[in-house]
């Protein structure tokens, strides 16, 4: 069995603006499937990724109602990777930068997300086998 690692990711992009956050969550999902311990520091726009009030919608252009459209919500993806990690003996510790949350008014987050600061990011990175930052470009 592969050795369990602790990995830290720093994300910056807001939802629905680029593919970087989707790519990051795909990497996190792979790590979760392997039971690694995962830390995420969401910085700037990325704090809106787990925003609890994201809402699915119908899409008239696609000709589908809300149920059929099954519109992707990053908050659901985050909840899913958290569950996946737990199923495999791992864990996702998701920290939202508190000041970034305040300036965007996105305090309501899905369960398991906590508020923190750059000091938490440093603490997580220091205790990890490696850290990957995925910044906004």
């Amino acid at each position, binding site marked *: 069995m592969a050795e369990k690692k602790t990995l830290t990711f720093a994300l910056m992009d807001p939802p629905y603006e680029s593919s970087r956050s989707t790519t990051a969550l795909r990497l996190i999902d792979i790590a979760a499937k392997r039971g690694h311990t995962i830390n995420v520091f969401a910085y700037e726009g990325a704090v809106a990724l787990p925003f609890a009030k994201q809402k699915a919608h119908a899409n008239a252009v696609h000709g589908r109602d809300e149920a059929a459209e099954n519109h992707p919500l990053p908050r659901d993806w985050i909840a899913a990777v958290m569950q996946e990690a737990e199923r495999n003996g791992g864990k996702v510790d998701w920290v939202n930068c508190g000041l970034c949350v305040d300036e965007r008014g996105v305090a309501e987050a899905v369960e398991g997300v906590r508020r923190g600061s750059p000091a938490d990011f*440093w603490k997580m*990175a220091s205790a990890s086998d490696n850290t990957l930052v995925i910044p906004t470009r």
Partner: protein
Amino acid sequence: MKVLQVVETAYRATLEEQDDTIIWLTHAMRGAQAELDLLLSGNAVNYALVGQDASGLAFGEWRQTQPPRLADDIAGLIKKGVQVHVVEDDLAERGLANAHLVEGVGRIKRASIPELMEAHDQVWHW
């Protein structure tokens, strides 16, 4: 652990944020005893120039009273013990080879970046 922060993307919402968010992050983590150095590359080399003035933002009667002061923020990092480097080749490509830089900023040739990276445990490229 010692980390090299490489800032390449420049002026990312600096007026809204009143700073560069990664320079700010570096300040905040340094305050939490983080061991960090900074390399400014690409357009971010401009952060090291003295004489920047981002004041004057106004919408209707709203006025920005605290604009970003990036050179001061760089100087502040140096004061906190963070080594700050700029890529000399990136300065030259932008016509800034002889620009007046914040005191304490080191110029490094692009070819020497691997050695700088080797001197750190991790490299975070922003």
